[in-house]
């Protein structure tokens, strides 16, 4: 790992952590468990495109671990982890099929799989399959929030490529 890539990864982790901690403090708008804006996913997706899957996974795991410790929600970490890892593996796999101008599609798919992963974890942990009642609502919220966070990541990536600053990983691919 080059110094430049390492620095970028560290910077992105810090940014993801700050966004995550701010988001935790925004009260949730709905009484439905698991609905969140997922703003930190902007950084996850951006990291995937700019630094590659290995570094992006580091950013994601560091953000989940440190984020749950800093926000005092360690008991809720299992939900973030299950959703985060399922979603990450899916988007890392399908990423190659989409253009930079379609990052938002990858993001929506990621958000939906994130919510599915969370529901699976919740069903296993609470032992009540009735929770799956919330799955359609969570898919709707995943499509909406995923599209917005994805668009943000997409605009960011496009601008950086245009400025010639995204030469860590993207250049090899395109």
């Amino acid at each position, binding site marked *: 790992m080059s110094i430049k890539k390492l620095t970028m990864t560290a910077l992105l982790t810090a940014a993801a952590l700050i966004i995550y901690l701010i988001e935790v403090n925004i009260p949730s708008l709905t009484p439905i468990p698991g609905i969140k804006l997922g703003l930190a996913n902007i950084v996850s997706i951006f990291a995937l495109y700019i630094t590659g899957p290995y570094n992006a996974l580091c950013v994601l795991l560091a953000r989940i671990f440190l984020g749950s410790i800093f926000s005092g929600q360690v008991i809720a970490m299992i*939900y973030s982890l299950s959703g985060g890892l399922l979603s990450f593996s899916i988007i890392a796999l399908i990423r190659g099929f989409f253009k930079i101008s379609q990052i938002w599609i990858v993001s929506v798919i990621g958000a939906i799989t994130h919510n599915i992963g969370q529901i699976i974890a919740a069903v296993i942990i609470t032992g009540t399959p009735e*929770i799956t009642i*919330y799955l359609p609502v969570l898919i709707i919220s995943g499509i909406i929030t995923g599209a917005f966070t994805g668009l943000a990541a997409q605009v960011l990536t496009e601008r950086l490529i245009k400025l010639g600053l995204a030469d860590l990983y993207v250049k090899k691919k395109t």
Partner: protein
Amino acid sequence: MIRTTRFWMVFFAVLLCICGGASWYLINREPGSRVAGIYQDGALIRRINLEDGQAFEFTISKDGMENQVCVDEEGIRIIRSNCPDQTCVKHGNLRSGAPIVCLPHHIVIKWENETDAIEDIDAVTGG
């Protein structure tokens, strides 16, 4: 075809409609009974028959995780919790098919099936 943006836009729009319909149906579905079951970690803690019209409060506590449950003529709800997200408190009364969930504390309050409710009616008393 699968790589075009238009395909995915249509796909997401269809998915939105299906999920909208499904959630409207599932959440507005009438409960099968008036017996609520409280579960933690998948184990039944208590069954409460809301037809009884009793009003009382009690606290579910486990390893420092506390949820105060209130039962009265309006229904059953969690009125206080020391969990970080407070989603269970914001849920309010258990009305429709949607269970009250406290994810950090692994607590679920849901309507019981009619058969379960009759079978275990003894667990209902003792408020």
